[in-house]
């Protein structure tokens, strides 16, 4: 009966698949079954299923070591039977034997096949029908001498049937002598021991191995080169401008990632089991450091100091890494991955916050990093979904390690972000430099002007000093010597060139004319006025009438068009117990009459010289007998201010004079000067101070 195309089986008939077969790897399939669903023309559904026993390629194990166990004819029926790739960890003593019965199809006879033994982490000898095919490491009896290795490259193996055997399958005995003393080491606790081997096409195996190495080498060298270039560049940027610490953390981040790349791909080249453990530890440590660097770098966007939330991340990451360091083969790997997955949203949180809290942002442009992280985030989510079997992986990790290249995009974005900030800083500095230059030029200009001013001042000071010397030279160097008159003088200008003046003229008949004056203002103009006044005095002092002398002097000064310069002047003529006084705007003279023992102010009206040439000056005649004292003064001392802005004033002057009338003219002057200094109490002298004191004597 023929089966119909649409799958019908006629009543009572049998459909047969004569060449049904299954394959499984490793050669220990689980329970399997075929299940069928059928229906009849009435729509009734029927179901049937039947398990098929796929006999596992069992092997036998015996702990210990005996060279007789290599023989194909050795009877191992008393040995423990275990499934392929299962490892008797609880019975393992460091060395043992595994024996297999391997049936080989005749099509594989005399073919160049390849053998690969994996998960060795120790030493192994592989025997086929009693002959050593391959040896990895050196089998030893003690842990101390162990040379634990890993095998990656396939070795040739071929099957030859016993003489006379033809067609079908040949039967072979595989024996593995194996030693490994790691199983009781705490570091290796958790490692799933599963010494295994497989045989395949040698060409294919070699090609696959070469392909893997080629790809791994490319990815390792390319990614490491790029990341180290980033690290070097940004470390140099940090050295050139240490204030932008983000460059340092980015250099650390890229260095860590270069290490991760190295340790990730390097195991494909490692043949030493101990080195394998170190690579595992260092890879995870580098990943943790990378995460710390990434977090530290991100926090710089918003926080001037490391925020507190970093502390739990740091402690958990550090603890897990240390735990993983001590026990790299237990579940710590998974915990670390959970930690990395938990830390990643924290980085994203800060990046997003830096977009929202724009006022607090310390480094501008986080959108660049966010943009760069988008592919990495999508790739990460896709890989997680593929781990959960929700989506398939489009290619193997070794073919194209997508997360690493997505991370490369992140690094590029971070580099662009930092370079942009660096450039922005440079721009700001450039702008500030322009401002500083402008300010410097202004300062230099001001300095130049100040220097010119100082030079001008120095020149003027020099001129003033010369003028002062000239003015001082104009004052009499000595006072006239008269038999019945004692005279003392004092003059101290407030500036280099003062406006006060005194002078004497002694006629041949013994008449002494005394002048004391005070030019308005100080300095050069006042000095000039004093010079002119001295000349006028010298030419007019011999005349008898003091008011006329003052009037002539005033007219002469007025004719000189000196502007608002005026000269106060008091003239006194002394002749045989009599003095005549006339004044033009000077303070009153103080006269002490010895017989009355009182001090009187001689107050006469009179405008200063130079302003009103027709003004009629007054004159007073006073007896001046033995013991009488006349104090002539400028307004410097009576109008002196102290540090409390109080004026000394004329009544006080009068009192001061009253206190010293019995003394000599020089002593009177000394007393008055000392009283003035005491009154000023350190306040600088603001006006010229001049005295002429005359005392009549017997």
């Amino acid at each position, binding site marked *: *009966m*023929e*089966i119909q*195309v*649409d*799958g*019908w*089986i006629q*009543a*009572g*008939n*049998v*459909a*047969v*698949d*004569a*060449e*049904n*077969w299954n*394959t*499984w*790897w490793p*050669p220990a*399939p*689980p*329970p*399997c*079954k*075929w*299940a*069928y*669903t*059928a*229906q*009849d*023309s*009435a729509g*009734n*559904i*029927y*179901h*049937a*299923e*039947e*398990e*098929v*026993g*796929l*006999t*596992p*390629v069992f092997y036998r194990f015996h702990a210990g070591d005996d060279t007789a166990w290599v023989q194909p004819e050795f009877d191992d029926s008393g040995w423990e039977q275990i499934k392929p790739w299962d490892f008797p960890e609880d019975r393992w003593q460091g060395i043992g034997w595994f024996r297999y019965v391997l*049936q*080989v*199809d005749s*099509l*594989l006879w005399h073919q160049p096949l390849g053998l690969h033994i994996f998960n060795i982490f120790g030493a192994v000898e592989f025997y086929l029908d009693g002959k050593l095919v391959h040896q990895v490491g050196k089998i030893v009896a003690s842990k101390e001498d162990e040379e634990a290795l890993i095998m990656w490259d396939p070795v040739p193996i071929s099957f030859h049937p016993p003489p006379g055997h033809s067609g079908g399958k040949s039967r072979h005995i595989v024996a593995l002598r194996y030693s490994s003393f790691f199983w009781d080491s705490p570091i290796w606790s958790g490692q799933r021991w599963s010494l295994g081997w497989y*045989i*395949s*096409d040698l060409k*294919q195996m070699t090609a696959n191995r070469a392909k893997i190495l080629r790809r791994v080498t490319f990815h390792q060298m390319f990614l490491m080169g790029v990341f180290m270039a980033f690290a070097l560049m940004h470390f140099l940027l940090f050295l050139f401008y240490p204030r932008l610490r983000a460059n340092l953390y980015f250099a650390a981040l890229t260095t860590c990632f270069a290490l991760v790349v190295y340790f990730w791909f390097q195991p494909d080249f490692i043949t030493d089991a101990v080195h394998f453990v170190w690579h595992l530890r260092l890879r995870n440590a580098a990943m943790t450091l990378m995460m710390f660097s990434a977090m530290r770098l991100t926090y710089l966007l918003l926080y001037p100091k490391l925020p507190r939330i970093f502390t739990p991340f740091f402690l958990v990451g550090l603890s897990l890494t240390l735990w993983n360091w001590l026990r790299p083969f237990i579940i710590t790997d998974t915990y670390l991955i959970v930690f990395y997955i938990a830390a990643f949203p924290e980085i994203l949180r800060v990046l997003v916050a830096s977009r929202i809290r724009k006022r607090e942002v310390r480094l501008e442009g986080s959108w660049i990093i966010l943009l760069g992280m988008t592919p990495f985030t999508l790739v990460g989510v896709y890989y997680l979904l593929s781990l959960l079997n929700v989506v398939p992986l489009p290619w193997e990790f070794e073919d194209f390690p997508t997360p690493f290249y997505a991370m490369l995009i992140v690094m590029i974005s971070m580099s662009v972000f930092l370079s942009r900030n660096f450039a922005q800083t440079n721009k700001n500095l450039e702008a500030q430099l322009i401002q500083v230059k402008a300010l410097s030029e202004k300062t230099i200009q001001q300095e130049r002007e100040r220097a010119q001013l100082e030079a001008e001042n120095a020149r003027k000071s020099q001129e003033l000093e010369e003028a002062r010397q000239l003015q001082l030279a104009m004052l009499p160097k000595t006072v006239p010597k008269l038999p019945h008159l004692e005279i003392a003088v004092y003059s101290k200008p407030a500036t280099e060139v003062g406006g006060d003046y005194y002078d004497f003229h002694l006629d041949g008949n013994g008449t002494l004319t005394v002048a004391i004056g005070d030019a308005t203002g100080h300095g050069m103009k006042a000095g000039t006025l004093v010079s002119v006044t001295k000349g006028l005095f010298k030419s007019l002092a011999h005349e008898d009438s003091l008011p006329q002398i003052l009037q002539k002097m005033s007219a002469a000064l007025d004719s000189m068009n000196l502007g608002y310069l005026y000269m106060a002047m008091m003239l006194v003529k002394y002749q045989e117990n009599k003095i005549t006084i006339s004044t033009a705007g000077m303070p009153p003279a103080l006269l002490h009459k010895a017989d009355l023992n009182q001090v009187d102010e001689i107050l006469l009206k009179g405008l200063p010289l130079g302003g009103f040439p027709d003004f009629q000056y007054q004159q007073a005649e006073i007896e001046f007998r033995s013991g009488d004292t006349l104090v002539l003064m400028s307004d410097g001392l009576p109008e002196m201010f102290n540090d409390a802005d109080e004026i000394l004033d004329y009544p006080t002057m009068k009192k001061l004079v009253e206190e010293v009338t019995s003394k000599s003219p020089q002593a009177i002057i000394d007393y008055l000067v000392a009283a003035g200094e005491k009154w000023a109490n350190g306040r600088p002298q603001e006006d010229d101070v001049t005295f002429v004191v005359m005392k009549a004597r017997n």
Partner: protein
Amino acid sequence: MPTRLFILLYLLALAIPIHAQQHALPKETNALIVRHIPNPSEGYLWRRPDKRIGYKWPYRTEVRNNLNVPLQITHFGFYCYENGKWVLENLPPGHLYTSAEFFKRYDDGDSG
């Protein structure tokens, strides 16, 4: 009242799939009898059709229609027991073989 309504709807929701399943359940009869020969099968090393080398467990499978009416195989598959459940191992993954594929593979006809 809302609580009662919720319980009623809940029971209704449960009842629908149960009712549907009762109709979909195949008849547990000896209508189809499946046999693998040899069973168990012994594996050996061989070169697969894709030139790769692996283990092969060969056997012959017979599906007998034990009724007196024709039956059509609507779908069938190979399952293995993994992690506590039976997992379909057909290729491509998840694909249930059809009646056309049954006709193509089971082409030895009536063995009597």
